[in-house]
């Protein structure tokens, strides 16, 4: 009973800490983007920046009020679901961001569907055949992927797959089998690229988790008893790695966010990340703010989920 109370307290502390982080992020995003108001009005008007026009725009954007007052206005708006309007298109940023968010979630979801099983399989096989040529090759390849910037993976993927596309009829036949060929055609490159980035990171972490499990005393005992490799993997290894593997998956999916920014821009995919990059280039501050908040909230959600899974798994191990 006391154990359960302690567990609940620890869980609440985790959730509380992530809420504090969210508040920190909100405050930080506002003050970083709002401290220099003057040149936003100047930049927006460009050539038409007469003193009158600038002061009128500053007034309509509340830029003539003190920063703290603007912060209160902004936060009050957030709490009422009013995130402001785009400085460029004059549309509500919440509507702009949410229609793009669905596209991004679709891209991330489809990628996770492919990347997670591949990464788990690759990491596990590398751990089982540790120090073989196969393991070394996988290690080197994944190290290369995690070292280079994401856009390089995207560039290389374009080079390989768009050149080899007609060399690999298997790809074409897959899209023939599914009647949603056009869907796959527009999706395959972004998903493939993003999956490469995720598989690189995730299979390395999976390998570490599996090596840890394979070296444990109960596996050693099972080997000494003469159990078959399949029996050892199914009965002794897998039950003990489910929790840490969930942790690996949640952490990897939070890396997905960084990759999404690059991939959406490279392939002109209409998601929220490319919206954010465009709004940064145009210095459309309200749009930047909401995109940053959505990204940070998603990132915090995934990392907190990883922490909670790690906590629960350590509890289970103590209980056992």
């Amino acid at each position, binding site marked *: 009973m006391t154990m359960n109370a302690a567990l609940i307290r620890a869980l609440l502390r985790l959730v509380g800490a992530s809420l504090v*982080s969210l508040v*920190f*992020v909100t405050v*930080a*995003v506002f003050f*970083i*983007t*709002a*401290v*220099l108001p003057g*040149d936003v009005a100047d930049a927006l008007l460009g050539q038409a920046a007469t003193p009158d026009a600038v002061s009128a725009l500053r007034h309509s954007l509340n830029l003539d009020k003190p920063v703290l007052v603007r912060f209160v206005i902004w936060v009050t708006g957030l709490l009422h679901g009013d995130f402001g309007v785009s400085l460029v298109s004059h549309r509500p940023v919440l509507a702009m961001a949410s229609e793009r968010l669905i596209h991004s979630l679709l891209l991330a979801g489809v990628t996770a569907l492919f990347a997670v099983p591949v990464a788990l399989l690759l990491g596990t096989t590398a751990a089982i055949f540790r*120090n*073989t*040529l196969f393991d*070394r090759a996988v290690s080197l390849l994944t*190290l*290369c992927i*995690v*070292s*280079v*910037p*994401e*856009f*390089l993976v995207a*560039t*290389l993927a*374009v*080079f390989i797959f768009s050149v080899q596309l007609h060399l690999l009829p298997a790809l074409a036949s897959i899209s023939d089998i599914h009647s949603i060929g056009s869907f796959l055609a527009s999706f395959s490159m972004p998903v493939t690229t993003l999956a490469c980035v995720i598989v690189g990171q995730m299979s390395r972490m999976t390998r570490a988790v599996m090596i840890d499990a394979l070296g444990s005393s109960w596996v050693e005992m099972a080997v000494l008893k003469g159990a078959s490799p399949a029996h050892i993997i199914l009965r002794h290894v897998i039950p003990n790695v489910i929790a840490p593997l969930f942790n690996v998956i949640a952490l990897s999916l*939070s890396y997905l*966010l*960084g990759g999404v*920014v*690059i991939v959406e*821009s490279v392939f002109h995919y209409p998601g929220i990340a490319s919206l*954010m*990059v465009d*709004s*940064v*280039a145009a*210095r459309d*501050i309200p749009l*930047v703010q909401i995109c*940053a908040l959505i*990204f*940070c909230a998603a*990132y*915090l959600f995934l*990392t907190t989920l990883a922490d909670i899974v790690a906590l629960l798994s350590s509890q289970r191990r103590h209980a056992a």
Partner: protein
Amino acid sequence: MTVAPFARRWVSVIPRIPGSLILFWLLLALLGPVLAPFAPGEVVSRTVFAPISAHHLLGTDYLGRDVLSRLLCGTGSTVLLCAATTVLACTGGVFLGIIAALKQGLTDTLLSRFMDGVISIPSLLSALVAVAAFGSSVPVLVLAMSLIYMPGSYRTCRMLALSIVRRDFVLAAQMRGEKSGYIVLREVLPNMTGPVMADVGLRFIYAVRLLSNLSFLGVGLQPPLTDLGSLTRENLLGLVYGAPAVIAPALTIAVLTVGLNLALDSYKGKAG
């Protein structure tokens, strides 16, 4: 399965490399503009995306400029900017990390909370927000990236220092009434140089990745300045022709980051 003797000999050579590798890139960055055969902005050929030739060793780019010259200058910006970022981030991180471990209490709590807050925002995102707010000039990029990577360095150094500040020689120095700066630099830091250097190398790789990504997105270094990311971006069309204009900068980034990471990997493997 054992590694062939040849491969093993290579693996044993790698640990000595990280330092000299960084030295090599810094030298190349400083000498690059001097070695460049043409001015980087000058249009020198009427052929765009020209292949490798004796006159233009790496061909020409999308405007007919000499790729080798632009690559040498671009490598210079990437390496120097990221080196400056790393120096700033790690100086701050190392100093504050050791101070936090030394003082404990409120100083430690406040510093750690702040660093945790910064680290809870993905790095690419913080950089995008900073560029949106302050524009993408060189000082903004360097300062923003330094702030982004300081918490990681802080965390590592605080952990490393925590086990050192309890040792007798540090306590003795405190008893003697030495100043904090002296204790940080003379008593604590010399006892953790190995892991700190590995951490510095890692921050440098992260900085190269971030700056290249930003420039590739078009919100990093602005023309006429170029770096490896913007060189890849502006010549992306050459990918169709397999032009060296796009392959050369991409390959340079790969060699820079993968090489250093491999070197650090075996260095850490040896140290740990």
